[in-house]
């Protein structure tokens, strides 16, 4: 067996390869932010922000013209807007899982990817929140969402899962943002101390909240970070559970199942990790972070993708089993229609991408092959989008009234807005990697061997 593979399974393996010093990490990560804007970045940013502008323009047209420009109509009253919402919220799950749950479990390998994954979470939730906002049709009445006093004596309906959803996602966004920002403070202070110009110094000084790296500050920081981790841990499980109640509390066959909350959470983590993987592989390559984001990290993530993928596959089969076991003819009908009806093509894309393809990760070779994992992560992203599409379109298009059965076809605006949301996502992401340290420097230093007080320097005897 080759030595590298051996080492990967050795508990003593260093999380960061190449024997870096503290200074090397600071230099490596900070220089990405401090160097001049590269042509490639400018080109990508131009592309992403143009796509984002198309999204903003089409939202303007949507507000002007109404949601009739989308392909939704009776009986499919929820179209791509909700598909995209659930898709993006799902992607936003990996960030908090990596930052909070893995932190509490002392999984030190998370330090290389957490900053990155948390940023992705925040941007994904921003993309997600756009869709319920614009799908209401009369956007000027969107304040109905908020519990504010008004002349109508109207108040949000706290029995409605759509309201739970609003609060769940809102809380998730707030806590994720605080968590991300708290982690950023020491690193922003590092950048501030390295800043050359006065303006840069001042701006970073404001955002680093007067961080000086004193003992007491670190003590408070660590405590705050742990509390936030504790606070976000239940959120990882609750957010997508609540999103799933949008469906599960409705009496629509194919939605009305108790398996939905855990099924959605597993799917969310699955898709979130796939998206982290896609982005991490690109960033790793572009910014030469091979020593920080090692193959071990990627392999660990692939194992999570494999696990959650199988949980999703279990849910798919359990849905089928229950539809038969319950003896409910409507339930049975809708599931037969899913697999063999008019949306069979979408269903089998979903099953192939989410269940069959990730099985390749059983092979250690594939788990450690960069091109393979890149392709698989993209397949998972596609599959998870289709999962939401299948759930929404199949159940609605053949409802209880056969006379209104219809086939859902998206319009050009549906497609533009889905593509546009990726433009928004990548615009925010590119801004992030250009202006903020994409790896948590302070935390990374904590997992280096020399941070361990019992660390013996090489060649020195105790």
């Amino acid at each position, binding site marked *: 067996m080759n030595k590298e593979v051996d080492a990967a399974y050795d508990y003593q393996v260093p999380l960061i390869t190449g024997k870096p010093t503290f200074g090397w990490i600071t230099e490596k990560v900070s220089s990405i932010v401090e160097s001049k804007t590269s042509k490639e970045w400018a080109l990508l940013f131009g592309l992403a922000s143009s796509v984002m502008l198309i999204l903003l323009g089409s939202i303007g047209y949507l507000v002007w013209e109404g949601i009739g420009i989308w392909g939704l109509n009776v009986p499919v009253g929820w179209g791509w807007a909700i598909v995209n919402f659930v898709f993006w919220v799902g992607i936003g799950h990996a960030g908090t899982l990596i930052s909070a749950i893995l932190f509490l479990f002392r999984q030190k390998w998370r330090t290389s990817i957490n900053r990155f994954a948390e940023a992705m979470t925040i941007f994904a939730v921003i993309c997600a929140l756009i869709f319920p906002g614009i799908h209401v049709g009369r956007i000027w009445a969107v304040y109905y969402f908020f519990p504010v006093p*008004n*002349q109508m004596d*109207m108040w949000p309906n706290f029995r409605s899962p759509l309201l739970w959803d609003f609060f769940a996602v809102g809380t998730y966004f707030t806590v994720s943002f605080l968590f991300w920002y708290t982690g950023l403070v020491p690193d922003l202070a590092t950048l501030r101390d390295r800043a050359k110009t006065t303006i840069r110094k001042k701006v970073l000084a404001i955002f680093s909240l007067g961080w000086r790296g004193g003992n007491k500050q670190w003590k408070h920081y660590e405590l705050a970070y742990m509390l936030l981790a504790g606070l976000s841990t239940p959120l990882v499980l609750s957010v997508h559970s609540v999103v799933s109640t949008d469906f599960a509390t409705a009496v629509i066959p194919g939605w009305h199942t108790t398996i939905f909350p855990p099924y959605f959470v597993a799917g969310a983590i699955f898709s979130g990790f796939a998206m982290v993987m896609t982005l991490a592989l690109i960033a790793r390559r572009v910014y030469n972070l091979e020593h920080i984001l090692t193959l071990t990290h990627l392999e660990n993530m692939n194992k999570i993708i494999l696990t959650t993928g199988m949980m999703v596959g279990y849910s798919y089969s359990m849905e089928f089993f229950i539809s038969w076991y319950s003896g409910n003819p409507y339930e049975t009908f809708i599931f037969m229609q899913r697999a063999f009806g008019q949306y069979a093509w979408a269903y089998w894309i979903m099953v192939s991408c989410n269940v069959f393809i990730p099985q390749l990760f059983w092979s250690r070779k594939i788990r450690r092959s960069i091109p393979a994992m890149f392709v698989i992560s993209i397949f998972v992203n596609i599959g998870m989008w289709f999962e939401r599409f299948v759930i929404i379109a199949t159940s609605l298009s053949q409802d209880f009234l056969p006379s209104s059965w219809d086939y859902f076809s998206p319009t050009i605006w549906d497609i533009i807005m889905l593509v546009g949301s990726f433009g928004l996502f990548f615009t925010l992401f590119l801004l992030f990697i250009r202006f903020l340290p994409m790896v948590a420097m302070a935390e990374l230093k904590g997992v280096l061997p020399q941070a361990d007080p019992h660390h013996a320097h090489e060649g020195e005897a105790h």
Partner: protein
Amino acid sequence: MAQIFSKKANLWPFYALIVLVFLLVGTVGFFWYFGSPKYTDVGYRPVQPVDYSHKLHAGDLGIDCRYCHTSVEVSAKALVPPTETCMNCHSLVGLDNPKLEPVRASWESGQSINWIRVHDLPDYVFFNHSAHITAGVGCESCHGNVAKEKRVMQQKELSMGWCLSCHRAPEQHLRPHDQVTVMGWQAPENQAEIAAKIIAEKNINPPTDCSGCHR
């Protein structure tokens, strides 16, 4: 290393927080107060094409509301009377009154008078006059005492919250059937008793769900 900011800068986030709270409360409060029909709609008193006085007709002369607004008891709409209704009397009375010139012109040409609607609910609200009159809600409850008005003005806010306040507790606004069109009505001392009787008799149960008014 030199200090980038003075010590006072420590208070900036605190000030920012205060400003933020004020902005939030201020924005909500602004729309709550200035966006309410109580502010925007009450007091609407358009100049009508005819200088018609409710005070003279309904007040001094004591003509019943239903003489002109004929369908108020049987239909969703109370109806603005056609010129013919005016001419029932004014073919004999006030023949040389210049204020009646537009009415006579309308009578001769056959063109309706373009009365301006004062109490105008949004199109997505389905208000039914007959249901309210039958239940015993006085005209005055929504339109105010028009018998005192020379030119009609919107006196109540007609907001959704205002509608709901009565739908949730109609007791103070229910009258015996023969007093529905009375202006300047004062609730008698045993109003609670009377209202309870009316509610029981007519099985009054005002809807407070959305589809009660928004079909």
